[in-house]
């Protein structure tokens, strides 16, 4: 409708006239994307290890060598007693401590098995599991090696376990391929939602909203005119981000890219709609931004972007079903990284569509020209 066009024209004029704003809206997401992508990785390069060798024998020395040689560990300290180890762990000088007790070699020769103690600083949680697995791998190899050494009194040959590990969809384990879409979604959502919410709050604060409320503009027209310009801007940011992702980071595009854009279009209606809805019950920009930030934080952290949804307790996973970010992230990753098609994304996409209609209806209903 013509009125909507007039209103949209005003919004665009206002946004593009504010040079600082334009710079921020387009530049910031791009810079963030470039810089923060580099940060987003969990690859443990190598773990600082302390080896307390109370045995000081050939065999125990051999173990220390194997640990160092693998590249997964850096033997920062090799000492015969536990002195100062607590301090080292506390000061983060080492993250893991392997204690080889006295009598190690003897036990192996006599009993064919010997105890070892591994301490891991689990300060950061998830990493500990990976470090443990790496340690176990080295130990397992060494054990097999010792068991088949010539000169051993009893050479025992057994079957050898050969685990062929395959990583599907991301054979190069490129974390960027996973995070770039995720970051792009975060950035677009944050900026889009914030701009939309703040826009109405600003008009309230400056008093220009009253002038609009006195005109025959309908609620539907008003909400639409507040939504569309930022929806378009957000899609543009998304598109630019995708291009950069493809050109600079080589993110996979195994599935249908138009499908991703379609999903983005639907998703943004929901995300921006939430911003609009927030602005219907706040009265200052400060309030609006505050509420928006907190809600967004919850959405982002519970969307599977940074931590897996599968790991959440059942009730949280149920709640996550109402998180539009979660659905969009799922769609993006399924389509781009795994090459999934309509069948996989139909349901979440429908969910988003329903969500979009619902939130806009809510916003329109809540928005009242006449204060009660």
């Amino acid at each position, binding site marked *: 409708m*013509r*009125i909507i*066009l*007039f*209103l949209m*024209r*005003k919004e665009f*004029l*206002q946004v593009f*006239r*504010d040079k600082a704003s334009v710079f921020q809206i387009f530049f910031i997401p791009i810079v963030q994307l470039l810089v923060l992508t580099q940060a987003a990785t969990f690859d443990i390069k190598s773990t600082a290890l302390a080896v307390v060798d109370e045995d000081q024998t050939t065999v125990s020395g051999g173990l220390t060598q194997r640990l160092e040689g693998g590249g997964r560990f850096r033997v920062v300290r090799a000492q015969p007693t536990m002195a100062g180890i607590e301090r080292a762990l506390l000061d983060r000088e080492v993250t893991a401590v392997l204690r080889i007790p006295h009598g190690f070699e003897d036990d192996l020769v006599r009993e064919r098995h010997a105890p070892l103690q591994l301490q891991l600083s689990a300060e950061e949680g998830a990493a500990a599991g990976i470090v443990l697995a790496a340690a176990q791998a080295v130990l397992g190899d060494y054990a097999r090696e010792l068991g088949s050494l010539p000169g051993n009194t009893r050479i025992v040959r057994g079957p050898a376990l050969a685990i062929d590990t395959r990583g599907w969809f991301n054979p190069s384990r490129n974390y960027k391929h996973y995070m770039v879409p995720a970051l792009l979604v975060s950035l677009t959502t944050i900026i889009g939602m914030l701009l939309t919410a703040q826009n109405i709050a600003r008009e309230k604060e*400056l*008093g*220009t909203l*009253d*002038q*609009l*409320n*006195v*005109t*025959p*503009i*309908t609620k539907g027209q008003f909400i639409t005119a507040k939504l569309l310009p930022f929806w378009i801007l957000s899609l543009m940011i998304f598109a630019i981000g995708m291009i950069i992702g493809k050109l600079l980071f080589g993110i996979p595009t195994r599935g249908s890219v138009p499908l991703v854009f379609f999903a983005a279009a639907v998703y943004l209606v929901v995300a921006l709609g939430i911003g609009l809805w927030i602005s219907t019950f706040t009265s200052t920009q400060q309030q609006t931004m505050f509420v928006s930030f907190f809600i967004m934080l919850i959405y982002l952290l519970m969307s599977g972007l940074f931590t897996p949804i599968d790991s959440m307790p059942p009730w949280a996973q149920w709640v996550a079903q109402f998180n539009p970010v979660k659905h969009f992230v799922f769609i993006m990753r399924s389509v781009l990284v795994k090459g999934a098609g309509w069948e996989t994304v139909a349901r979440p996409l429908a969910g988003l569509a329903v969500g979009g209609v619902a939130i806009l209806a809510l916003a329109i209903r809540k928005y009242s*020209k*006449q*204060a*009660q």
Partner: protein
Amino acid sequence: MSEIAIDARGLTRRFGKFVAVNDVTFHVAQGEVFGFLGANGAGKTTAMRMLIGLLAPSAGSATVAGHDVEHDAEAVRRRIGYMSQKFSLYDDLTVQENITLYGGIYGLSNAQIAQRTHALLGRIGLEHARTELVRRIPLGWKQQLALSVALLHEPKVVFLDEPTGGVDPITRRRFWELIYETAATGTAVLVTTHYLDEAEYCDRLSIMVDGAIAAMGTPAEVKDRFEATSLDEVFLRLTRPGAA
């Protein structure tokens, strides 16, 4: 010609226990300039906001341009113009852009917008600033611009809330010339002000004290009733504690 433009009956508004507007009844005819006087906080703006559909009345009713403000608000909005106390046009848009926007909102065609822009800007002498950002033009002109936008779609009733606040006497004069011109075309004008000399310019006026109308009539009638020579005196008498 004496069609009723504004008909308020028992208009009341409460905020919790505080009664901001207390049983206000009055009417304004088409072509009339009606002054709404009162001290700050007397309830003028609140009453006006109810008449233009921005605030729901706690009790009472009102009809503006023939439609009920509470139940037929959209019809009311099509027929009124409004200029708020706080400047409420977009100061990061140009003069032209503001006018075009509101012209479009009120359903004027491009041709109409162009023609009326020309006429209005010419009348207030702002033609030279057509492409200036509103934030850069002086206050007096801003107010006149706001009035022009309020009149752009030729509404039947115009509501002006303290339109001449902070403006120099010459500009005030020009303002009132515009108001008279508008009224002459049959538009009803409701003006709130606390400048009592402006009150003399109105056809009829009312003085609000603590949310209720304490005096109403033509300037002469009011002065007569209170045996005063100036509205100033009337006002002081009404607002001094213990006044009748």
